[in-house]
């Protein structure tokens, strides 16, 4: 693994997130209506942006896989779905923490929240499918099909706050928030992007290694390499 990816990128991530959150917690002014509570935006909004981006990468990887079979795009699809689900779930948790003091409830059946919940459940189904199919080639094709069908939800989630005006506010972006909140939001978002890249790179490498082991390892042959033997026996089990 090259040095920058192993040490440099996590360091950059920590620095950006540290700076962004310090700016958000200590430097930016509290919101006029929501007060200090609003500061959770610097975590919640970047998390949701990155979840969307990861799920979009998943869609692109799935389409690419169907056009040109490659273990790399399959590994990318697996990595992005898992990381996207993680970020999306964290985004939903931070959102409900924000919702309790501002809306009075942790959860409301608002179109944005509902469509986001559907999205997360459908990516859970995608990941379950990946676990339940043993043949790597079939798994790759089927999960690509499921990913493409599931991705129809993505634009629905994104535009839901515009189509149905309801409880959830329209997306926060540097254009809609006060100039003093723009800097912390931007820095936190780039920090979260760096975190996304760190997670994706690691998960992608793991997925690719798993795939190579699955495809290349002769089923019956004993191996001397303990690492390979472990992966072999876990696959059989």
């Amino acid at each position, binding site marked *: 693994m090259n040095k920058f990816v192993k040490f440099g990128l996590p360091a950059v991530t920590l620095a950006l997130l540290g700076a962004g959150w310090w700016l958000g917690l200590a430097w930016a002014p509290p919101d006029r209506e929501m007060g200090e509570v609003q500061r959770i935006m610097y975590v919640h909004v970047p998390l949701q942006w990155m979840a969307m981006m990861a799920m979009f990468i998943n869609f692109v990887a799935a389409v690419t896989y169907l056009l040109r079979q490659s273990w790399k795009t399959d590994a990318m699809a697996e990595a992005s779905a898992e990381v996207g689900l993680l970020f999306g779930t964290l985004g939903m948790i931070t959102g409900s923490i924000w919702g309790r003091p501002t809306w009075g409830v942790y959860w409301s059946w608002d179109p944005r929240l509902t469509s986001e919940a559907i999205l997360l459940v459908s990516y859970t189904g995608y990941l379950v*499918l990946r676990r339940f199919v043993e043949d790597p080639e079939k798994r790759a094709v089927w999960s690509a099909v499921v990913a493409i069908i599931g991705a129809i939800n993505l634009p629905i989630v994104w535009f839901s706050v515009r189509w149905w005006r309801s409880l959830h506010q329209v997306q926060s972006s540097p254009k809609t928030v006060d100039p003093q909140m723009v800097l912390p939001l931007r820095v936190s978002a780039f920090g979260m992007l760096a975190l996304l890249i760190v997670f994706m790179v690691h998960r992608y490498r793991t997925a690719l290694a798993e795939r190579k082991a699955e495809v290349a390892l002769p089923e019956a042959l004993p191996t001397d390499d303990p690492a390979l033997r472990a992966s072999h026996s876990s696959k059989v089990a």
Partner: protein
Amino acid sequence: MSAPNAKRRPGLLATTLVLLRKDLLIEWRTRARLNALVFFAMATLLLFSFALGPDTKLLERNAGGYLWLAILFASVLSLGESFRVETENACLDGVRLAPADARAIFLSKALGNALLLLALAVVLVPVMVALYGVRIVTGVGDLAGILVLGSLALSAPGTVYAAISSNARARDVLLPLLLFPLVIPALLSAAKGTTLVLQGDPMQQLGSWQGLLLGFNLIYWGVGFVLFPRVIED
């Protein structure tokens, strides 16, 4: 059925109809699936009234939702079954070698499933009238439209996912897990539409729910038609 030279190979529509006829014939000869579905769905409708207590007002108000939940639960059984008959004795390979276009297999399976769900829905409506005391306010034509569009909407994505999960481990868990989140828009609009048909539609909202169902159908029949050949390729 097809001649060795490619010119006389039947077209997509002809192949679809032949396959659909085959599936319906299998269904007609045994009638096992429809019978099972009807009793399963009736039991579900009955269970809703037990779970909620004998409050007829409540049952009547939510009848549209219960009808579509019963159909959705039954559809999971039906969809799984529609590919089980093909996995036995590698029948699907036989059909592919026939040679049938994979897209025709999708169309025939999805249409067959939709017909079965529609038949189920038609049987369930009188049961609902008896159990929940509902009345059909805006007319039978509106109800028929919602039932047709709703059955089609459940069967298109359901057929793709049933083909996938029929070959996977833990297929009984997998199909609902994949299908339920996906069909929420269809379920919502079918249930709302049915409720409007049963309780009157003073605000003229029925058209927009039918439009949503139609859009859902167009998207998923299109996506299924394009992607299904990749699902069953070897």
